[in-house]
């Protein structure tokens, strides 16, 4: 039998992108601002979510989807604040994808949510390649990781809308060069917004809260 070549020319993850559009449409229908939070393990994703819940909970109805390889320790911390939270365990998977987020949305009271945080699996290699249906991609980089991370994971930094540079309280003890970090990140991604913060001391968080509140207002008025 003769061999025939069929031209495809399609992204391998095209089906995920289509599902992410379905998720986005559903979230938009409810006027929900959705933020996909990505970072290496231990950079401060859960700390940022908890600080932001405490500050904003009287102004916005918040829900959280927690993605982890295993365990529900993060979800329990959110649950302790009486915030709706859904845990996704990826069973070894290193990222969330749009197909995992869809059933989580089925289990959230979407009509009572203004702001949804999706905490991705801690990993800098691939989560940016899997759209979930978010409005905003947010990365947390932390000082102990070193200022060279954008060279090692350039695609993550090129794709993100916002970078929170966390653990600034450790600056006196580390050799992290903040200007060098900002220079390479804005070089890769000229539109990125960078907030230096410390979730521990609270330094810099006011600017992040103010920005987030303004984006929330923008989403509501759409």
């Amino acid at each position, binding site marked *: *039998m*003769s*061999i*025939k*070549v*069929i*031209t*495809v*020319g*399609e*992204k*391998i*993850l*095209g*089906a*995920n992108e289509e599902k992410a559009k379905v998720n986005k449409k559903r979230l938009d229908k409810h006027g929900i601002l959705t933020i996909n939070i990505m970072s290496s393990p231990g950079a401060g994703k859960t700390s940022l979510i908890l600080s932001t819940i405490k500050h904003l909970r009287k102004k916005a109805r918040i829900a959280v989807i927690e993605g982890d390889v295993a365990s529900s320790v993060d979800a329990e911390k959110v649950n302790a604040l009486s915030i709706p939270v859904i845990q996704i365990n990826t069973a*070894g*998977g*290193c*990222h969330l*994808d749009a197909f995992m987020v869809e059933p989580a949305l089925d289990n959230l009271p979407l009509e009572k949510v203004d702001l949804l945080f999706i905490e991705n699996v801690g990993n800098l*290699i*691939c989560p940016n*390649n*899997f759209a979930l249906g978010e409005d905003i991609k947010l990365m947390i980089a932390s000082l102990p990781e070193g200022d*060279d991370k954008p*060279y090692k994971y*350039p*695609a993550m930094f*090129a794709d993100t809308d916002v970078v929170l540079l966390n653990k600034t309280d450790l600056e006196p003890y580390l050799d992290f060069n903040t200007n060098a970090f900002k*220079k*390479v990140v*804005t*070089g*890769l991604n*000229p539109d990125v917004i960078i907030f230096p913060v410390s979730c521990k001391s609270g330094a810099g968080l006011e600017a992040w809260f103010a920005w987030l509140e303004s984006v929330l207002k923008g989403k509501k008025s759409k």
Partner: protein
Amino acid sequence: MHEASITESLLSLALEKANEARASKVTRINLVIGELSGVVGDCVQFYFDAISKNTIASGAALSFETKPVSLRCRSCEKVFSPTNHEWACPDCRETGVEIVTGRECYMESIEVE
């Protein structure tokens, strides 16, 4: 571990295209993968051999065309390969750069019988 979901996606895409063409067997799948895509070819092949059993793509060869990283200077538009930790343009030393190639992750074609 993301290779597992990438492999599932590429198998279903290949089977969809093969079925549309009423093919009886997929013999080769030609993929274009950038160096920055984080996809390890050997890993994909391993998963593929396992999950394609009992499909018309069982035994198909996966061919990976790897695309190297290239950057474009945002100031003078020179395209260059990053060779140092500064990623500075070799002509004008500007550090504002755009990733041109190296992020590809697509299926170029399939070969069927």
